[in-house]
C-alpha cells in the first residue's frame, strides 16, 4: 500500500470491570488507503463495533484502550486533546451507527441539528450557509423534498430516510473516512440495497474512504475492496474481497461465508404435496379484510386522516402448512397479525377459523380460540417479563386455559421446555443472562405449551444471528412435523422465508400482491414488486435478478394518500399508463397461486379470462 489514510496498529481494548476476561480487542492492526472501501466482518461479539468506535476515540467505561495506536493522516486519534479530537471527529472520521433514530435529538428538526454540527466542526460558518450545505447534501443522498424534510422532526422520517440523514451528518464536515457500523441491519431489503448503492455513489463522487462493519457478508460483497475478518477480538484474516470470499483461509471466515443467507442455492422445504394440502378446508381463511385507522390532524381545527393499514387482504392458510407473509415495514404485516389473532377487529371482511367466522364467536369461543392460535413475538427481551421465573412465564397461559393442578402443570411445562431445548432446571430461574436464542425458546415454549393448532410467528427469528437461527428453525421443523402445527411466519427476511415456508404471500401497502408456492415465488416471481424484493435480498450467491434493472427507487407511498390505480405503479419498473388508472384485483395463476398485477412478468401463467371473471365475482 502506497498511501495510508488510517493506520491502526496493535490496538487492544479490555473491559476494566472484568480484568480476568480475554481482551475485547487483541492487537488489531490494519490500514485504510484514501478512498478505499474496507469491510470488517465477523459474527456478533467478535469486537467489530468496539473496534469501529475505538477508531473514533470513543471508548466508554468500563472499556479502556490498553495499547496500540490509531492514526489518521499521521495524527494520533487516541491521544488527541479534546479540541483536536472534536476536529478529527467532525472533519476527519465520520460515524454512522446501526440505529440512526437515536443519533438525533427527537425534539429538533433534523436539518437544523446537522447544520448545528457543521457549525461546531467548521467554526465561522453562518447558520444560513450551514443550512445551505445540508440542503446540498440532502439532495446528494436523494432525500426527496429536501428543503421541507430538513425542517421536520426525526420521528417523521422513515428508517431509510433517517439513515440517509445520518450519513449526511457523518459526511458534512468533508470527512475523509466514514465508519458505517451495521447501517443496513434495521432496514428493509429494498431500502438497504438503496443505501448500499448510495455508499457506492458517494464513494465515486467524493472519494471518501469507508469502513463497513457488518455480520452480513452479502451486504458488502459488491461494495468492499478488501475484507478484514474478526473473531474473538482478533483479526484472523484479511484480503481482497473476491479472493477471500472464494477461498477463505480460516475456519472463522469459512463459517461466516457458509452461514450467509442463500435463496436460490437452497431448496424450499418439502411441503405436503401441494394439491393435497390445498384441497383440504382452510384452517384460517381471510376474506376482504380491511383495517383503517383514524388519526386526528394537527393542522386542522377539526378533521382527521385515515391510514389504510390493511386494504382488503385475501388468503387462506391450510392445516399443517407454513405460510410466510413477507413485505417491507409499513406494508400492514403487523396489523394483519393483530387481525388474525383477533387482538383487533377488522372494519370489514371476515376471518374464519376452521370454517367459523371469528366475528360471530361468543366470548367463551374467543377465549378458546386464544389457546388454539398462539403468537411468538419478535423481541426476545421485551416480550419476556424480567421479574418472573421462566417457569411462571411459560405456565401462565396454562393457568388461564387449563385446569391442571400445580404439579401437573409443572410437569407439562418442564416437558415442553425439554422439547424446545431448554434445560428444565431453568424453571425456577429468572431469564436475565440468557441469550437471545434461549429467550426465543422460552417464547416458543410459552406458545406451544397449550398445544395450539396454529402458530403465528411475527419476526421471531429476525433478532437472532445466523448461528442462533439455524437450530431454532430446525426446532420448528420438528415441532411442525410432530404436532402438525400450522405456522404463519411474518417476516421481512427472504432467505429465512425461503428456508421455512411452503407458501409465500407478498404484501405491499396493505394488500397481498402475490401468493404462491415457495418454488414459484422465488423461482418465477410474477409480480414486479416480488422481483424487486428478490433482487434486493442480500445473498451470498449471485442473484438471478439484476438489481440495476429490477430494484425499485423511493419508498412506498403513504397509506394515507393512496394512488387511484395500482399502489405499486409509481415505483414499478414495468408500469404502463393503465396501471395508474385502475387497481388490479387478485387473480388466480396456473400454478395455483394468485397475483394482483395488470402486467405480470410472465403473462402465460395466468388462468383464462373466464376464471378471472369468476374470481372477481366471488372475491
Amino acid at each position, binding site marked *: 500500500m502506497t498511501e495510508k489514510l488510517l493506520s491502526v496498529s496493535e490496538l487492544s481494548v479490555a473491559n476494566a470491570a472484568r480484568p480476568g476476561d480475554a481482551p475485547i480487542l487483541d492487537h488489531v492492526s490494519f490500514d485504510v488507503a484514501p478512498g478505499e472501501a474496507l469491510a470488517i466482518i465477523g459474527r456478533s461479539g467478535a469486537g467489530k463495533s468496539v473496534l469501529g*468506535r475505538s477508531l*473514533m476515540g*470513543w471508548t*466508554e467505561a468500563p472499556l479502556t484502550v490498553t495499547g496500540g495506536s490509531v492514526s489518521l493522516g499521521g495524527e494520533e486519534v487516541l491521544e488527541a486533546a479534546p479540541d483536536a479530537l*472534536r*476536529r478529527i*471527529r*467532525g*472533519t476527519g472520521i465520520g*460515524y454512522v*451507527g446501526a*440505529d440512526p433514530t*437515536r*443519533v*438525533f*435529538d*427527537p*425534539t*429538533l428538526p433534523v436539518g437544523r441539528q446537522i447544520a*448545528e*454540527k457543521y457549525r*461546531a*466542526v467548521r467554526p465561522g460558518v453562518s447558520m444560513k450557509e450551514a443550512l445551505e450545505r445540508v440542503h446540498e447534501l440532502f439532495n446528494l443522498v436523494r432525500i426527496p423534498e429536501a428543503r421541507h424534510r430538513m425542517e421536520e*422532526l426525526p*420521528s417523521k422520517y422513515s428508517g431509510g430516510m433517517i439513515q440517509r440523514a445520518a450519513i449526511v*451528518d457523518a459526511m458534512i*464536515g468533508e470527512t475523509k473516512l466514514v465508519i458505517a457500523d451495521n447501517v443496513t441491519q434495521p432496514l428493509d431489503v429494498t431500502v438497504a440495497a438503496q443505501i448500499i448503492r448510495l455508499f457506492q455513489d458517494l464513494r465515486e463522487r467524493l472519494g471518501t474512504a469507508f469502513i463497513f462493519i457488518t455480520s452480513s457478508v452479502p451486504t458488502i460483497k459488491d461494495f468492499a475492496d478488501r475484507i478484514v475478518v474478526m473473531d474473538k477480538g482478533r483479526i484472523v484474516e484479511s484480503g481482497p474481497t473476491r479472493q477471500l470470499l472464494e477461498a477463505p483461509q480460516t475456519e472463522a471466515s469459512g463459517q461466516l461465508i457458509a452461514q450467509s443467507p442463500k435463496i436460490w442455492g437452497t431448496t424450499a422445504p418439502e411441503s405436503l404435496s401441494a394439491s393435497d394440502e390445498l384441497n383440504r378446508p382452510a384452517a384460517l381463511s381471510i376474506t376482504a379484510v380491511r383495517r383503517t385507522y383514524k388519526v386526528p390532524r*394537527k*393542522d*386542522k*381545527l377539526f378533521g382527521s386522516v385515515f391510514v389504510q393499514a390493511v386494504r382488503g387482504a385475501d388468503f387462506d392458510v391450510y392445516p399443517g402448512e407454513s405460510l410466510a407473509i413477507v413485505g417491507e415495514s409499513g406494508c400492514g404485516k403487523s396489523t394483519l397479525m393483530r387481525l388474525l389473532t383477533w387482538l383487533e377487529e377488522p372494519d370489514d371482511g371476515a376471518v374464519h377459523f376452521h370454517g367459523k367466522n371469528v366475528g360471530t364467536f361468543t366470548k367463551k369461543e374467543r377465549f378458546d380460540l386464544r389457546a388454539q392460535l398462539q403468537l411468538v413475538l419478535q423481541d426476545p427481551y421485551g416480550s419476556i417479563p424480567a421479574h418472573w421465573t421462566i417457569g411462571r412465564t411459560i405456565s401462565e397461559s396454562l393457568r388461564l386455559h387449563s385446569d391442571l393442578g400445580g404439579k401437573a402443570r409443572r410437569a407439562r411445562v418442564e416437558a415442553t421446555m425439554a422439547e424446545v431445548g431448554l434445560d428444565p432446571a431453568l424453571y425456577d430461574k429468572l431469564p436475565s443472562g440468557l441469550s437471545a436464542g434461549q429467550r426465543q425458546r422460552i417464547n416458543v415454549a410459552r406458545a406451544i405449551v397449550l398445544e395450539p393448532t396454529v402458530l403465528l410467528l411475527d419476526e421471531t427469528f429476525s433478532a437472532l444471528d445466523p448461528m442462533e437461527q439455524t437450530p431454532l428453525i430446525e426446532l420448528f421443523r420438528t415441532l411442525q412435523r410432530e404436532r402438525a402445527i400450522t405456522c404463519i411466519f411474518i417476516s421481512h427476511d427472504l432467505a429465512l422465508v425461503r428456508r421455512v415456508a411452503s407458501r409465500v404471500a407478498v404484501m405491499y401497502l396493505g394488500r397481498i400482491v402475490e401468493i404462491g408456492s415457495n418454488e414459484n415465488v422465488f423461482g418465477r416471481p410474477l409480480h414486479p414488486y416480488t422481483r424487486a424484493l428478490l433482487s434486493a435480498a442480500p445473498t451470498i450467491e449471485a442473484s438471478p435478478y439484476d438489481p440495476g434493472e429490477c430494484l425499485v427507487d423511493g419508498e412506498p407511498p403513504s397509506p394515507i394518500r393512496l394512488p387511484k390505480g395500482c399502489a405499486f405503479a409509481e415505483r414499478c419498473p414495468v408500469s404502463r399508463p393503465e396501471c395508474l388508472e385502475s387497481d388490479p384485483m387478485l387473480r388466480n395463476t396456473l400454478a395455483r397461486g394468485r397475483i394482483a398485477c395488470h402486467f405480470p412478468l410472465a403473462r402465460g401463467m395466468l388462468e383464462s379470462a373466464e376464471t378471472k371473471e369468476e374470481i372477481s365475482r366471488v372475491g
Partner: protein
Amino acid sequence: MIATFSFLARRLSQGALIVFLAALIVFTLLRVGPGDPARMLAGGLSDQASVDALSEKMGLNDPFLVQFGKYVGGIVLHGDFGQSYIRSESGLSVGGGHGDDQTRSDRADVLSLLGSRLPLSLGLALAGLGLALLVSAPIGIYAGLRAGKWQESLSIMGSSLLVSMPSFWIAGLLVLLISIKLKWLPAVGYEGPRYLILPAIVLAIEMAPIFIRTWSSAISSMTRRDFVRVAPVRGLGQRQIFSRHVLRGAAVPFINTLGVMLTSLIGSLLVIEFVFDFPGLGKLTVEAVLQRDFPLVQAIAIIISAFFVLVNIAVDFVSGLFDPRLDY
C-alpha cells in the same frame, strides 16, 4: 399557527366546562349541607317570619336551578360573585343578631374582598416559588450531571429530609428561632414586605426538594440518552450539548412539575397563611369555610378551579414548545 389556535380553543372550552361543573358541584354541596344562611344572617334570636322574609329576599326560596342560574348569570354577565354573608364593607365580620337591619348593601362584595387579599397571597406565592426555583435549579442540575456520584446522593438525601418535615412544624421552628430568639424578622400578620420573608422561606423549603429531584432526575436521564452520548462523537462541544439538548430535554419534566407545584401551592398557602396569621387568600378561605360564608367559598372554589385549568393548559402548551412531538 392553526395547531396552536385549535389547541387553545379546544382546551379553553374544555376548561370552561370543567370550571362550570366545579361551580355546580360546590353550589350543590353548600346547599345540601346543614345550615340555613337566612337563619344565620338574621341571628339566632330572630323570629321565623323575619327569617322567612329574608330568605325570600335573598332568593333562597327559588328552585335550586334558578338560584344557580342567577348566580352563574351574575358572574358571566356582570362579573358579580355576590356579597359575603358575613363580612361588611369595612372588612369586619357582621351578621348574627342584627336581625332586620341587615341589608345587602352593608355586606362586602365578594370580588372586592378577594381583590384586597389576592395581591398579598400572590406576592407570598411568587416569593416562595422564586426562592425555591433559585435554590433548586443549580443544586438539581449539578446533582443531575453528577448522577451516581456522592453529590447526587447528598442532594437526594437532603431533599428527602426536607420533604418529610411538615411545613407547619418548620414554620414553628423558624418563628421560634428567627423571630423569637433572634428577633430578626416579624412572624405574624402583615405590615410590610418584611412580613413576607418567613412564610416565603417556609414555602420554598416545602417546594425546593421536589424541584431539586425533578431537575436532577431529568438532567441525569437526559445525559444517558443515546443522542446525548453520541453528540461528542458527532463533534459537538460539551457546552453546546448541555445547553441545546440536555437542558431543553429536561425542561419538559421540569415544567410539568412546576405545574403540579403551582396547584399544590394553593393548599400550602392555606396552611402557611393560617400559621403566620397572614391576611391573604388562604386565610380568607379558611375563615370563610369556618363561618359558612357560602358566596365567598363558592367564589374561591371557582377561581381555584379556573386557576387549575389555566395552569394545566399553560403547562401542556409550554411543554409542546420544548418538545414538538407532544400532541397537545
